[in-house]
């Protein structure tokens, strides 16, 4: 499975999809596969202010717990509450149904520093 070309990536496996000033964040298939069966996703409250490079939540699988990072600063405007009941969506559809948060970016220029799909795929080939 190739990774979507329309987003920006962190080396820690989070994808960022930009639509106007809203940035949707989730994790890649590579990350979801490494974690194996995901059992819980802890997301921030709507309204939380995020700093680029800081953790916004945690993801738990039968194997491990990892932090989730944002590559952009801004305010959390929506979270995917469905993941409470369907953490398996992150395994099944990490790039669509398994999205995690939407952030209203305060400095969208920060996204320029992230990897594009080709750079990510070079380091984490599928």
């Amino acid at each position, binding site marked *: 499975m190739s990774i979507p070309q329309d987003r920006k990536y962190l080396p820690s496996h989070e994808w960022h999809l930009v639509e106007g000033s809203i940035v949707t964040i989730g994790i890649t298939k590579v990350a979801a596969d*490494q974690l194996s069966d995901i*059992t819980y996703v802890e997301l921030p409250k709507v309204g939380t202010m995020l700093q680029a490079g800081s953790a916004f939540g945690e993801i738990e699988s*039968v*194997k*491990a717990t990892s932090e989730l990072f944002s590559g952009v600063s801004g305010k959390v405007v929506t979270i995917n509450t469905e993941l409470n009941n369907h953490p398996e969506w992150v395994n099944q559809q990490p790039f669509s149904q398994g999205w995690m948060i939407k952030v209203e970016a305060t400095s969208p220029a920060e996204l320029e520093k992230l990897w594009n799909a080709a750079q990510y795929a070079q380091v984490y080939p599928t």
Partner: protein
Amino acid sequence: MTQNHGVADVDVTIPLLFEEGSPGSCAVSLSKSDVPQQDVRKMLPAELVADDSPPLPEIAEMDLVRHFTRLAHRAFSVDANFYPLGSCTMKYNPRINERAAALPGFANLHPYQPVDQIQGLLELLYAVREFLQEISGLPEVCLQPAAGAHGEMTGLMLVNAYHRDRGEQRLNVLVPDSAHGTNPATCTVCSRTAITVKSRPDGKVDLDDLRKKVDRHTAALMITNPNTVGVFDEQIGDLAEILHEQGALLYMDGANMNAMLGIMRPGDFGVDVMHFNTHKTFSTPHGGGGPGSGPVAVAEKLRPFLPIPQVIKKTDATFELDHNRPKSIGKVRAFFGQVGVLVRCYTYIRSLGTEGLRNVSDKAVLSANYLAKRLEKAYHFPIPGPYAHEFILVPKFEETGVTEIDVAKRLIDHGIHPPTMSWPVHHCLMIEPTETESLRTLDYFADTMLKIAREARETPEVVKNAPHHTPISRADEVGAARKPNVRWLPG
């Protein structure tokens, strides 16, 4: 569920106490009451009185004894089987430790007894401190913390007190990505922010990344050395220098002290504060087997802040408690900490002596490297050796779909406890044989691992469906985590 009349067989499911027994049976005989009976409904408000008796198990005494004995026989322990669990040294607990801890002179003391009646205990505590000071190369030790993580917390509280005393507030703590998970947790508990420092591909700290991240806001670096990938970072002296130049301190997590007893002393390579895990290094019981103990050793500059009281030796060779430390962070545990555990720790150190302790680490390191060498052709080793007391290997049988979990489960069929899995490197197994295993056992483990590697290629289904000889083969871990059902209901 059918009654199990004690057929000692792994294939038999042991029913719950609630499912065993028969109405009217009772495992205890209470003596006749010698006080007048009262009606509970007259003594308590009506809403607090239950309609029915609680549905407790009704079971005869012998059936109860057999129930628990059968369960106990299924417990997996280092006394019965090889237990190569990396990251948390599972070493044998010599019986002499228990004998010493049960001596009435220790076991029957009361913490409020006056000091002139507990001189023997105080002498022992003083001696444990001296031993740990010598082993760590640091001038003073506090025995109060009740576990390794509690020792970490105490250590970081001391670091905070030190900076505060100098009129500084340093809010950041650097933690290499190869650290134990408790290290960043400790930072959070102590109101400090953990900042990750990168490791190089060989598992050692990236000094360039460290230099970029250390500044006047850095309170300390917390490092586990040897680290969780099983290598000793010989840059530790440089690390200390980089930190000290910025006024920051070096904290060492002593979880892996089993690799360096009598070989190296953390105080000599610039460590300012560290903790011991007596259950990992000094053969005291592991969690569940009793309370823990996490003594903290400190450099001279942290001495004034240590918890009180400290046992001190007077000029007439008697022992006393010193409460007079105005800069102390206070108490972190009631009385003297986990005294029973410290008696075991003392016994272990005394029964081995200086040469014996050095021998522990030599053998632990030799055993780990011997196993790594024997397995090098059948498994992938992401971190190059030589190793300290543990190492990481990755089962790579991609085309067959056999993973680290399958290898671990297959080990159970051979009477070996699964090693630590999937951490700190994806898909890895972390193996720590400890010093007490004979060459025969080490070879048995290596032969078994080689056999499993062959099976993974030739008959992968055998590995993927393991274990084959346990009451339950593979539990539904995903279901248990996603929809936990933690309450048993009858019927």
